[in-house]
């Protein structure tokens, strides 16, 4: 129980701390600022949904940042050439899925550990993105796709950007999938004890490909959102985002050894980092201060988690 609410306590602590530090809690906690924070965190949060699946199954994916860049370029190219936002959206999401399938096949068919397979993809996807974008940004016509992740939606009743709502809905859906579907439980089984899962007749290889492909859908959607925020496809964007995504999952209670992790926790983890960043910006602290603080927070969050685990099992 404590495990479940601990990330929430952390989030509350960050918010209260910065509300006091900025000396203007009404501004830090205002709806306007909340919109900024949420719009900033959507990409990380979408990535963290996919990454939770992978980390729970005892895998890892280092190619997220490159996958986001590649899908943002693909989305922009399709949008530019067809002017169809729907086609562009579908192309982006499916490109993410395809990258996941290739990762999954490299892990299962070539027997390469996930760390290395996706490290390779980190380079390949980035390279392909620059190649098909001709090493330039890809400008797109104005469509509703550009409205996906705006901080202040044109329809005021929406309150938050459409992508924020989409992320919330998808997160809830994936919570149900992980908890109440055979697929979800097998993801946990795989991460908990792969040999046992195999001995029980589960097609472990197929399951792994399915996990990386499903996660890829979310990375693709994150790429579409990235394109939407920048209003262009940029092959050099999102460098190192995979580390933020992994950090979100881990702050939310995920274990890199598999078997543990939750979508809800990962969402809170993403928010913790977003509020930290935003708070530092409001304080007018330099970028490097943010980097140091977030680095420390990641280590402290995991250390606290390990400490709790050792207390409960001893």
């Amino acid at each position, binding site marked *: 129980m404590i495990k479940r609410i601990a990330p929430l306590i952390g989030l509350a602590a960050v918010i209260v701390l910065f509300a006091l530090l900025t000396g203007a809690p009404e501004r830090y906690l205002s709806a306007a600022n909340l919109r900024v924070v949420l719009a900033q965190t959507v990409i990380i949060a979408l990535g963290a949904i996919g990454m939770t699946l992978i980390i729970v199954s005892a895998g890892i994916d280092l190619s997220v940042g490159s996958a986001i860049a590649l899908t943002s370029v693909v989305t922009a190219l399709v949008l530019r050439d067809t002017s169809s936002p729907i086609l562009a959206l579908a192309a982006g999401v499916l490109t993410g899925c395809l990258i996941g399938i290739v990762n999954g096949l490299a892990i299962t068919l070539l027997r390469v550990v996930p760390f290395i397979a996706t490290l390779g993809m980190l380079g390949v996807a980035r390279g392909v993105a620059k190649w098909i974008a001709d090493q330039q940004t890809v400008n797109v016509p104005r469509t509703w796709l550009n409205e996906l992740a705006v901080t202040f939606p044109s329809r005021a009743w929406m309150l938050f950007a459409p992508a924020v709502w989409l992320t919330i809905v998808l997160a809830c859906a994936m919570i149900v999938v992980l908890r*109440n*579907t*055979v*697929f*979800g*439980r*097998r993801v*946990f*089984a795989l*991460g*908990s*004890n792969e*040999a*046992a*899962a195999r*001995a*029980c*007749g*589960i097609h472990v290889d197929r399951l792994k490909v399915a996990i990386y492909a499903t996660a890829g859908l979310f990375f693709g959607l994150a790429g579409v959102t990235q394109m939407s925020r920048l209003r262009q496809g940029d092959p050099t964007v999102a460098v190192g985002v995979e580390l933020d995504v992994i950090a979100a999952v881990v702050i939310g209670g995920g274990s890199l050894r598999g*078997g*543990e992790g939750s979508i809800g926790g990962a969402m809170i983890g993403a928010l913790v980092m977003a509020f930290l960043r935003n708070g530092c910006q409001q304080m007018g602290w330099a970028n490097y201060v943010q980097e140091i603080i977030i680095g420390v927070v990641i280590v402290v969050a995991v250390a606290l988690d390990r400490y709790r685990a050792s207390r409960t099992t001893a």
Partner: protein
Amino acid sequence: MKLRGVSRRFGATIALDNVDFDVEPGEVHALIGENGAGKSTLLNVIAETIPGVAHIHQELSLCPHLTVAENILLGREPARRGFLLRDELNARARTLLAEFDRTDIDPNTRVMHLSLADQQIIEICRALAADASLILMDEPTSSLQRASVEHLFAIIRRLAARGIAIVYVSHFLEEVREIAVRYTVLRDGRNVISGSLSEITDDELIRAMVGHRHPERSEGPLLRTTSATERPFAALRVTNLSAPPRLHHASFELHRGEILGIAGLIGSGRTEMIRAIFGLTPSTGSITVDRSRLGYLSEDRKGEGLALQLSVADNVTITRFPSRLGWLDLEAQAAQTHEQIERLRIKALPQTRTFALSGGNQQKVALARLLHQRCDVLLLDEPARGIDIGAKSDIYREIANLAASGKAILVVSSYLPELFAICDRIAVMSRGRLGDARPASEWTPDSILEAAIGSDAA
């Protein structure tokens, strides 16, 4: 089930050579042999080639993060359109648990919170859920205490009565006789002899297992003849050692040249006591070591005892690398390792990587590390568990030699014949309390068991 002429090779080594093997429905069939004889390989072949076989490995294979019910029905979860039917899942798990009168296990508990014995029941339930007609059990009692073994045997008899065939692998001959009717002995990948257990003596079985290499019986009261008179030097004095909740106020003295055995049930606090003495578990009380070095042999060979990826030489010399100014002296290391290999009859070269060795040889490497360390007080936790008879007798002989040369030795063991064979004095641990150490001759198996399972009378 009949197998004829099964062979299997790994690279150049022949693991199985033309093996025949039969099991009848409802039969408990003992598969006996030294480590490396091909038992596990044979089980794997059976599990791979015959449908409807459940294989319960020596190391339990459950998913600790999943619930009891999810584990029992893993791979065959009741579902509608991909959605888990949790009520039905739990109901089916409950039905299976009820067959073993274990309605006290909640299907919603995460398996990581169960005891080892209970986890084994979950594995057996899983075999039943799979409608297995043949269950393979590889050393199922190696981590169970006696009461749980009785319970397991009751379950096995129930399974057999339902017509399920069981292949039972064990090193313990008494256990095999208790549960099995027929047996097959494997040696060096061939089946040597099969038949009914009632028509063969233990000596004949052991001879079939080891061939003509060790004709003498390797267990029994043969190694120690010294009397347990008071010795002048206490090498280790432990007073009021406590490490709650598993250990309370343990006190004893261990003398040079003495082997003190600690008997007791698994979980009674024996391992915690050794770990507390060695400083691995925080404790209160006093530990006096008289100008002596301590050496510790963990019961967890793969997890703590050895660095499996390293060579035999690295493992043996790791506590005292021969070096000059920080540079390893590789020739000296090889020579010193070779000495230990000869001494303990380890079947390996100094440069062999340790994971490639059989369990018995790995255990010898772990013991060799203590010998090379030149420690004066040896704390040995289950020094001969799960290894074959040949390796066991080598290890017992070496322990006796060490004591004869003046080392002080503490042995924790769950195997009573082992304690009677090598110990001068034996003390029994029960529920975290250590009884008085008395000469081995004053104990009987019955009195030890009584002390171990007795109430708080320690």
